C-alpha cells in the first residue's frame, strides 16, 4: 500500500454495499481499518462524514470521506490507479458499458424486487418480487455473455466493476436459497451466472470480504421475525 495512506471503512457487516467496498479494497490489495457501525446508534464520525444520507458505507481516506458504494469503488480505482489491477477497462466505450451494468445491478430492477420478495407479507407480493428479479437476472445473463467475451468475468479475464457490484450480493443470494429454497442464479436458466458465482466465491479477495452465509441467514430470519411481530402488533384484534 502507498506510504502514508490512511483508509477507514465505516460499515456494517451484513450490508452488501459495504461488502462491495471491501471487495474493491481487497482486489486492489489495499489495507484498511474496518470500523463496524451500530446502525441504531450511529457514530459522530459517520454522521459528520455522510450528513446527507447518514448511511454506510463511507470510505475515509486521509480524513476525506467518500460516500455511495459505486462511487467509492470508482474512487478507489482512480485514487490508487498505480496499485493492483484496474477495476475499470481503459477503453471509454467498455467503461461506459461497465458503468451501465453496475447501475443496472443497483437499480430498482434487481435489488428492490428481490428485497421485496424477502420482506413480502403475502404470497402475491413475494412472487411478484421474484418474477421481476428473475427477469432482471436473465438480462444480466446476456450482459455477462457480451461483457466476458468468453472469459470468466464481466471484466473479461479479470474482475471488474460489475463483478464487484454483483459479487457483493453473493452471501445474500446464498442466504435466500437457504431460507426459501429459491436459487436466484439457476444453473439451467442462467448457466453463465451460476458458473460465475462459483468462480467468484472461490477468489481469496472475495472470501475475505463476503460475510458468512450462516450469519446472514440468522440475520435475515431475525429481521423477518421482527417484521412479522411488528405487523401482528399493529393489527387490530
Amino acid at each position, binding site marked *: 500500500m502507498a506510504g502514508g495512506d490512511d483508509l477507514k471503512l465505516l460499515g456494517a457487516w451484513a450490508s452488501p454495499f459495504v461488502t462491495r467496498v471491501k471487495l474493491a479494497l481487497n482486489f486492489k490489495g489495499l489495507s484498511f481499518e474496518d470500523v463496524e457501525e451500530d446502525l441504531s446508534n450511529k457514530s459522530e464520525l459517520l454522521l459528520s462524514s455522510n450528513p*446527507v444520507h447518514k448511511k454506510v458505507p463511507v470510505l475515509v*481516506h486521509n480524513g476525506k470521506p*467518500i460516500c455511495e458504494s459505486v*462511487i*467509492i469503488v*470508482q474512487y478507489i480505482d482512480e*485514487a490508487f490507479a498505480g496499485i493492483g489491477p484496474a477495476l475499470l477497462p481503459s477503453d471509454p466505450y467498455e467503461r*461506459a458499458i461497465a458503468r451501465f451494468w453496475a*447501475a443496472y445491478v443497483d437499480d430498482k430492477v434487481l435489488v428492490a424486487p428481490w428485497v421485496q420478495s424477502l420482506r413480502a407479507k403475502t404470497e402475491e407480493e413475494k412472487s411478484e418480487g421474484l418474477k421481476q428479479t428473475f427477469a432482471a437476472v436473465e*438480462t444480466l445473463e446476456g450482459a455477462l455473455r457480451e461483457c466476458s467475451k468468453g472469459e470468466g468475468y464481466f471484466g473479461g479475464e479479470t474482475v471488474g466493476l460489475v463483478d464487484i457490484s454483483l459479487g457483493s450480493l453473493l452471501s445474500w443470494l446464498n442466504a435466500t436459497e437457504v431460507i426459501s429454497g429459491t436459487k436466484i442464479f439457476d444453473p439451467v436458466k442462467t448457466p453463465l451466472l451460476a458458473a460465475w458465482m462459483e468462480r467468484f466465491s472461490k477468489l481469496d479477495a472475495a472470501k475475505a470480504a463476503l460475510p458468512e452465509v450462516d450469519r446472514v441467514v440468522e440475520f435475515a430470519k431475525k429481521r423477518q421475525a421482527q417484521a412479522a411481530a411488528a405487523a401482528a402488533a399493529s393489527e387490530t384484534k
Partner: protein
Amino acid sequence: MAGEGDIKLLGMVVSPFVVRVRMALHRKGVSYEYVEQDLFNKSELLLRSNPVNKKVPVLIHGGKPICESLVIVQYADEVWSGKGASIFPADPHERAVARFWAAYVDDKLFPAYIGIMKAATEEARAEKAKEALVVLANLEEAFAQCSKGKPFFAGDSVGYLDLAVGCNLFWLEAIRKMFGVTFFDVGKTPLLAAWAERFAGTEMAREVVPDADTAVVFAKKLQARFGSNTSAK
C-alpha cells in the same frame, strides 16, 4: 480512439436527461445528428439501441450505443478528452464529490419535481414541493463547498455537477409557472439562485435548453392524456 464522425443522439425535446447530454456535447465542441423520438411510439432504432431500458437519451457513436445520461456524459469527456472543455475535474476526490451530488440530484430532485406535476391532491403537491426544497437546501451547501467562491459548481466554468443540476432548471421554471412553487428563494438559497441565473445565461444553455413554456405545453398534454385531477395555472 473512434473518430468524430457518425454521432447520433436519440432524444426528446423536454427530457432533462437529454438536455444534459446536449450540454455535454456542446462543451466538447462535438457535432452530431439529433433524432427526436416519440416516446409514445418508440422507434425501431431506439428499441434496438436501448433494449434494456428503452429510454432516451441514447448516444450512438460509430454505430455503438451508450445509454444513461450520466454514463454518456462521462463517456463524452473520456472519448473526446482532447477536445473542447474538460467536464470532469482531474482530482479523484473532487470527481467522487461531483458524482455523489449528481446521483443525489437524479435520486431526489427529479422525482420531487415530477411528483409536483403529477400530484393528485393539493396536499400531495405541497408534500413534494417540501421535498424539493429540502433537496435544494442541500444543494446550496454543496455549491458553497464545491465552488469555493467561484461562479460554478466546478469553479470558473461549468462542469459535471453544473450540467447534472442545470439540465433540470427549465422544468423547475415550468413548474413555477404552472403551480406557483418558488424553488430559488434568494433569502434561503442565495448561492443557488445566483448560480441558476448565471447558468441559464451561458451560451451553452441558451443554445440547448428549451424554453420553460415548451415544458409547460408538454406537461399539459400529459395531464390531458392521463387525466390529472389537479389543474395548473
